[in-house]
C-alpha cells in the first residue's frame, strides 16, 4: 500500500577492543572506580600531547579488510571542537576529510518480500568510510536526567579517550528491518574478527541513523532526520519504524519534514526532537597539529590480513558442506564466536560434528542461556564433552544419565569420569539386575500391559520409560525393550 520508499544510512560507533586508550596508556577496562583509569593526557591537562595507539590503527585496518574496504595510504587526525564537561580538551580528536578507511560493503540476507516468505535475498550495503576517534567521559547528574536543571553533575573520565571506530554506510538500507539485520550482521562480524565486543545494550556498539522517505521511483532524496538513542538491535528497528511512520503521516497530511536530530524514546516508543539544523554545532574541524599523518605500509597491512580469521559467512558454508550440518544448526553455532570456537576445539579432539553439535545445542547452550553465561565463563572443556560422548557410545552410560552427568559437570566443574564413578551412573547392562525391575514394572502397570498385548505396540515405549525411571536412567534402553518384549510375549 505504501507509495513511499524508505531510505536509511547508518553511522555506527564501535568501541575498539584495545587494552589501552586511543592516545595514552591508560587501561580501557570497564567498571573501575570513577577517575582511576586516567592520566594527565586523558584528563586534558595543560601541555599534554596525544600519542597514537598502534593497536587501534591495526584493528581499524582489520575491520576495513573484513568489510572489503580500501585502506588509505595516508590519513589525518582532526580536531572536532565543542564545549562539554565530558570532553576534557574541549575538542575530540577524530578524523574528518581524510579517514583511514574508505569504500567497501557488507552483504546481508533479507527476507524476500515476494510470495514465498521463506526465501531470502542477498543484499550489498555499501560502506562509505570508517574513521578513528576517541570517546568522551561520562556524566552523572543529581536531581535531573540531564545537566540542565541538575543540582550537581559529576564527571568520570575513565571512558574518556577510549578508541572508537565510526562506520558510515551509504543510504542503501530500505527498511527498519534491513537496518536491524545489518546491525546484527555487522556486530557479529566485529565480534568475529575480535575488534569489538559489539554489545549494543552495553554501549560498545552504538547506532545513529539518517532517515528519509521519497515517492517510489523518485531519485532525489527526501528531507532527512537523524535518529539517536537506539541502544539495542530491537530498538533500531522500532525507532526507525516509528520515524518512518512519522514521516509518512506528515507527508500524508501535507506537513513539511524539517531536518533535525531526534531521539527514540524507549518508554513511549516514539521519536522526539533534540535539536534543529540551525542549532547544530559548528565544530571548526582542522587537522590535529599534535599528530603526524597515518601511513600504514603495505607489509603491515598484509600482516594484519593474515591474522583475519574466517568470516562468519564462510564458516557457515563450511559447516554445511564439510560437516553436513543442517543450516539452522550451523547458524546457531556460528552466531557467537566463542561457541564456534568451542565447537571447533571439540572437532580437533574427535571428528564427530553431528554429535558434538547436538550436545552443544540441546544441552550446553540451554544451560548457558538459563544461567546467562558465556561459554568462556565455564570450566567445562571440549575434552570433557568428547569424554561424555565417548562414554555414551561405549554404552557405559545412557543418554538420559549423560544429561544429568553433564549438568553436574557444568555446575560443579568436576571431571565427567569422576562424576560417573561417584554417582554410579554407569549403565546396568547386567540382565539379572534389570530383570527384577522389568518384572516389577509389568506388575505395576497392568493397564498398559493389556493395551500392548491387544496390539498397541508403541505402548512398549511407556514401559521402557518406567524401567528407565526405576533404574534412575542407568539402564540401557534397547536392552530394556528386549527384556520387556521377551517377558510379555
Amino acid at each position, binding site marked *: 500500500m505504501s507509495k513511499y520508499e524508505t531510505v536509511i544510512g547508518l553511522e555506527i560507533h564501535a568501541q575498539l577492543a584495545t587494552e589501552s586508550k586511543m592516545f595514552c596508556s591508560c587501561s580501557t577496562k570497564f567498571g573501575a572506580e570513577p577517575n582511576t583509569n586516567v592520566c*594527565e593526557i586523558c*584528563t*586534558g*591537562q*595543560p*601541555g*599534554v*600531547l*596525544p*600519542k*597514537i595507539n598502534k593497536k587501534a590503527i591495526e584493528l581499524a585496518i582489520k575491520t576495513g579488510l573484513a568489510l572489503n574496504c580500501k585502506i588509505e595510504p595516508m590519513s589525518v587526525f582532526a*580536531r572536532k*571542537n565543542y*564545549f562539554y*564537561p565530558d570532553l*576534557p*580538551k*574541549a*575538542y575530540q580528536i577524530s578524523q574528518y576529510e581524510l579517514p583511514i578507511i574508505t569504500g567497501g560493503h557488507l552483504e546481508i540476507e533479507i527476507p524476500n518480500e515476494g510470495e514465498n516468505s521463506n526465501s531470502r535475498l542477498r543484499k550489498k550495503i555499501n560502506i562509505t568510510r570508517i574513521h578513528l576517534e576517541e570517546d568522551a567521559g561520562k556524566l552523572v547528574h543529581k536531581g535531573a536526567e540531564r*545537566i*540542565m536543571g541538575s543540582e550537581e553533575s559529576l*564527571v568520570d573520565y575513565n571512558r574518556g579517550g577510549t578508541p572508537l571506530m565510526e562506520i558510515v554506510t551509504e543510504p542503501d538500507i530500505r527498511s527498519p528491518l534491513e537496518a536491524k539485520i545489518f546491525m546484527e550482521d555487522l556486530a557479529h562480524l566485529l565480534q568475529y574478527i575480535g575488534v569489538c565486543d559489539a554489545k549494543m545494550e552495553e554501549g560498545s556498539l552504538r547506532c545513529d541513523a539518517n532517515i528519509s522517505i521519497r515517492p517510489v521511483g523518485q531519485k532525489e532524496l527526501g528531507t532527512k532526520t537523524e535518529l539517536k538513542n537506539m541502544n539495542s538491535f530491537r530498538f533500531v528497528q522500532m525507532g526507525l519504524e516509528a520515524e518512518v511512520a512519522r514521516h509518512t503521516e506528515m507527508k500524508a497530511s501535507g506537513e513539511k519534514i524539517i531536518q533535525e536530530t531526534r531521539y527514540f524514546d524507549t518508554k513511549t516508543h516514539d521519536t522526539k526532537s533534540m535539536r534543529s539544523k540551525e542549532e547544530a554545532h*559548528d565544530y*571548526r*574541524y*582542522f587537522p590535529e*597539529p*599534535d*599528530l*603526524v599523518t597515518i601511513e600504514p605500509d603495505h607489509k603491515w597491512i598484509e600482516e594484519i590480513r593474515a591474522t583475519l580469521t574466517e568470516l562468519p559467512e564462510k564458516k557457515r558454508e563450511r559447516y554445511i558442506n564439510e560437516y553436513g550440518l543442517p543450516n539452522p544448526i550451523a547458524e546457531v553455532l556460528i552466531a557467537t564466536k566463542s561457541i564456534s570456537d568451542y565447537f571447533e576445539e571439540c572437532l580437533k579432539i574427535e571428528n564427530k560434528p553431528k554429535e558434538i553439535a547436538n550436545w552443544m545445542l540441546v544441552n550446553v547452550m540451554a544451560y548457558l542461556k538459563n544461567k546467562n553465561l558465556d561459554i568462556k565463563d565455564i570450566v567445562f572443556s571440549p575434552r570433557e564433552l568428547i569424554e561424555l560422548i565417548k562414554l555414551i557410545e561405549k554404552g557405559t552410560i545412557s543418554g538420559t544419565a549423560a544429561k544429568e552427568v553433564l549438568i553436574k559437570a557444568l555446575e560443579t566443574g568436576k571431571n565427567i569420569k569422576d562424576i560417573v564413578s561417584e554417582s554410579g551412573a554407569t549403565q546396568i547392562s547386567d540382565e539379572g539386575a534389570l530383570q527384577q525391575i522389568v518384572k516389577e514394572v509389568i506388575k505395576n502397570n497392568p493397564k498398559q500391559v493389556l493395551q500392548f498385548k491387544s496390539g498397541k505396540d508403541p505402548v512398549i515405549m511407556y514401559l521402557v520409560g518406567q524401567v528407565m525411571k526405576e533404574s534412575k536412567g542407568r539402564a540401557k534402553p534397547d536392552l530394556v525393550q528386549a527384556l520387556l518384549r521377551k517377558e510379555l510375549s
Partner: protein
Amino acid sequence: MNKKPAHELLSLLKNKKVSAVEIVKSTYEQIEKHEKEISAYVTLTKELALKQAKAVDEGKRSGPLAGIPIAVKDNMCTKGILTTCSSKILHNYLPPYNATIVEKLEAAGAITIGKTNLDEFAMGSSTENSAIKTTKNPWNLNCVPGGSSGGSAAAVAADETVLALGSDTGGSIRQPASFCGIVGMKPTYGRVSRYGLVAFASSLDQIGPMTKDVRDCAILLNVLSGYDEKDSTSAKLEAPDYTKALIDDVKNLTVGIIDELMGEGVEGSTKEAIEKAVKLLESKGAKVKKVSLPHLKYSVATYYLIAPAEASSNLGRYDGVKYGLRSKEAKDLITMYKNTRAEGFGPEVKRRILLGTYALSAGYYDAYYLKALKVRTLIKEDFEKAFKDCDVLISPTSPIPAFKIGEKANDPLSMYLSDIATIPVNLAGLPAISIPCGFANGLPIGLQIIGKAFDEETILKAAYTYEQNTNWHKEKAEIR
C-alpha cells in the same frame, strides 16, 4: 658568581673553586636586590634550589648542568610547582606531571631557580600581557623586556639566573633576547620535545635556550634536544654535540642578507649594527650575498590566522571544569563557561581566541585558515630557495630596540608588525638565534641568524665566530 656564564661556572665547580650552594646563594642575593624592580619571576623555588645545590655539592646530583641555576618560563609544566602561564585562569594550577624538558634538566643536575613571567599564554611581544606582573627591561626600567619570554630574558640579563628556558611561537625567545642583550635560540620545529609546554600554537611552538653567551646556548641545547616518544612531532634524529660546532671560522660559509628585512621600518642604528655585523663576518672570510624572500610580507597576516586558529582550540580546555579558575558567578553550565573565560582570560588572549574561532568557522575556513596554510608553504619554499645558495640567513631580530612600557599596549597591530623578522622562521619551522650586536641609546640590538632545518650547528658556528670577535655579550646592564 651569578654573573658568569654556565661554562665558566662548570669549570670552577669541577675544580672545586666554588660550590653549587654558593652559586645558588649569590643568585638569590641578586634576585633579592633587583627582583623588585625587574619582576622577572612569577614563582621562586629557593628551598628546592638550595636542596638541589646541596645534593650537587654532596655528589648526589650530577650531570652536564650540575649546580647551574636555570629559570623556567611559566608555561612549562613543573610537577607540584605552580604553572600559571601568567594567566588568571591558571592562577592556582599545580601540574601533576613534569614537562619532558623539565625531566631532562633534572637528569642534567640543573638547579631550578623559579618560574618566569610571560605574556599570558605566550601571546605578546612585551610581557605586558601578563595577568600577574609587568617585567622591566634591566637596561632601562621604563622599557619592556620584549616577549613573550620577557621574564626569562630579563632574569638572564639582570643575572637573576645563569640560564633560562623560553618558548618561541613567533619570536618569543629571540625578540626578548634581542631587547635584553642576551643569546636566545629557537631550535628547528621538532628538535626539542613540546610535551609539557602549555600549547599556544602547536604547529609553531618550540622550546629553546636563553643564555649569556653562545657557548652556554650550545651546552643547554645539548641537554634539551632529542626525540621524545611523548611528542609525535619531535624528530627521530640523533642530536649532535653542539659544543663541537663552536669554532671561530666562517670561511666557506655563505651568508645571505634578507633584503625584505633591511628596508623600510627598520630603525637606523639597528640597520647599521646589522650591516657592521655582516662586514665583520665578511672580514673573517664569509661570502656575503643579498637574498629576497618575496612572500615574507605575508608572514604576519599568515601567522595571525594560523596561530590564533590553533590557540582557539588549544585554550578550549580552560573551562572551569577540571582545574584553574571557576567563576563564582556560575549558575549553570553555560554561565560557568562564559563567566570563567570572561574573568580568566585577558584582552589579548580573548582577541586571539576570537580571531582563531572566526578563521576556523564554517564558510570561512577555506578563505582564511586553508589559504594561510598555502601561504605558509610558499614562505617555506622561499627559504628553501634561499638556502640553495646560502648556509645561513641574516636579519635584525627586531626592526626596533625595546620600546617604552605602555607605548604599544593599545596598538596591537603595530605590536604584531614588530615581529616581522621572527615570525617567518616559525612558519617555516627553521632554527634561528638572536645574539647581541650593538646598542641604540643604551638599549641592546639583536642579530638574527637563521639556519637550515636541523642545522643548528652552522648557526652556532657563525654566532660563535661573531661573538669571539666582539664584546657585546660581555656588556652588563646597570640596573637603575
